[in-house]
């Protein structure tokens, strides 16, 4: 770098940034004598105190994200999903991250941000939910049986294994086979009045692929329900993190009161460096 290069003088763009943040979600009404203290809060126009008296948590949750209160069928579908996703389970890497926070005596306030971040992965996490929602949105207008047939033909023609295929995010194998819990959750969701096109299309698609060990993944069930409830793909990943958070926190807290010996520590004899 012998020569010295000349660059332009740095100057501000003076871009027209907004003077105030705009929201359509929440309005805080100031008190009469202090503009920094709210006297009332409205969620999409509904008074929060009135919502507390009249509606369920699930109703207000739906309102917060969708802007309107849900029908009974929508609320039932959302509640069923929230129960289904409430705990990723003690073997999920996100839960194990929470457990490490707890048993390591990290401040329990850090359980949620740490574990929720791990629940945001492209595999078994929020990233996969978002991808699955894009996949479903793109293919819902097709015939699910035809889709399955073409999909299998393409895999064979390209000589690629299903494990390496990124074609059907949210659907496939976990640990080598059908994820039975996801299948069970999906089958129960399908019986609900609010089950929509995404759940039904996905069900038909996987029924044509089941003999190949391909079925629902939990992320796929979440994706289908989110689409049927009108959520956008970008929201789906974050909502998946949110809905799994109770389980993450519970498992983290459970280990927080236990000694550091309460979790396995792999012995040197089982630690192999491949070089």
């Amino acid at each position, binding site marked *: *770098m*012998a020569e*010295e*290069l000349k*660059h*332009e003088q*740095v*100057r*501000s*763009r003076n*871009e027209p940034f907004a003077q*105030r*943040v*705009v*929201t*359509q979600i*929440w*309005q*805080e009404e*100031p008190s009469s004598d202090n*503009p*920094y*203290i709210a006297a009332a809060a*409205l969620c*999409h*126009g*509904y*008074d929060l105190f009135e*919502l507390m008296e*009249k*509606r369920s948590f699930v109703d207000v949750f739906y309102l917060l994200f969708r*802007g309107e*209160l849900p029908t009974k069928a929508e609320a039932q579908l959302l509640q069923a999903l929230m129960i289904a996703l409430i705990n990723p389970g003690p073997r999920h890497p996100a839960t194990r991250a929470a457990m490490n926070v707890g048993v390591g005596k990290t*401040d329990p*306030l850090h359980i949620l*941000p740490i574990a929720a971040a791990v629940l945001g992965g492209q595999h078994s996490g929020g990233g996969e939910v978002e991808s699955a929602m894009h996949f479903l949105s793109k293919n819902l207008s097709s015939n699910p049986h035809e889709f399955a047939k073409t999909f299998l033909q393409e895999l064979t023609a390209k000589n690629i*294994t*299903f*494990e*390496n295929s990124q074609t059907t995010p949210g659907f496939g*194998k976990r*640990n*080598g*086979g*059908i*994820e*039975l819990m996801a299948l*069970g959750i999906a089958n129960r969701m399908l019986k609900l009045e609010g089950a929509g096109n995404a759940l039904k299309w996905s069900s038909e698609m996987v029924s044509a692929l089941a*003999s*190949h*060990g391909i079925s629902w993944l939990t992320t796929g069930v979440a994706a289908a329900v989110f689409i049927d409830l009108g959520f956008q793909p970008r929201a789906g990943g974050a909502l998946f993190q949110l809905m799994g958070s109770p389980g993450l926190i519970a498992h983290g807290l459970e280990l927080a009161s236990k000694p550091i010996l309460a979790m*396995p520590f*792999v012995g*040197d004899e*089982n*630690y*192999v*460096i*491949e*070089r």
Partner: protein
Amino acid sequence: MLSSDKPISNSNPTNSNPTNSNPTNSNATNNNATNSNPELIDYLEQRRGKIISNTGGWFPGKGVFSHGYSMLEELVGEKSYFQILILNATGKLVDKSLADWVEALYGCLSWPDPRIWCNQIGALAGTVRTSVMAATAMGSLAADSRIYGVFPLIESVTFIQQALAKHKQGLTSAEIINEAFAACKGKPYIMGYKRPIAKGDERLEVMEKVGRKLGFEIGEHMLLAYEIEKILMQQFDEGMNINGYMSAFLSDQGFNPQETYQMFSMLVASGVTACYLDTFHRPPNTFLPLRCEDIDYQGAPLRKVPD
């Protein structure tokens, strides 16, 4: 010693499922076959309770190892922290001069200005008294952004490496630019050029000076990056930004897009910490205070909650 990682073949599925024997499965039915691939189950079984690493580890009484080096005998005190950081991030033990260049670059992205989005997370965390580690970690995470910070390095390194490959095949800089714009539906946009808030980037001259001081020559990626900048300056009055500069420089040093992303995962951390402390030492919740009316509500008007 376990067998090394190998691809799982796509063998015909079977109904073999060792987990089906679990008597506690309260939902067990005749219909719970998983059609699993036995090879994958075997693969998992081999790794149950074991860690297989191609990176390193700590063996009490024997040493700590990273990518084949004894950390306490060959690295700590012998190599700089940034040499170790790059080794852990990429598996490559680079010369100290390159590690010093990367360290200088970290300084370029450690500004204590809370108007920058990731830094503001630090300031907001400080004003509500989270821990400094939560603030720094979360602010650093915010730099995993599509438009600023660390994540765009993947796109900008990919661009300049593909651009050089095309250049060697005969495409001119102008043709490379036109191709890039066409890929953006005609928008005059290339990652690594232009910058939010300000025109120009004062960090380029500083890093060029650092490069000269450390003895680096201008490589072929950087030469092309300058050529592209020259055209963009003439046509759009927009130059290269620090992201584009570091992408070209590190491409000349042999790093791929993912390695570049990996070695800068905590690039903004220090600036976030600084912004945290600035508000942490002031009365709580006084950083950029907002009146209720400072939020512009444009949603539904007051309505009655249906029963």
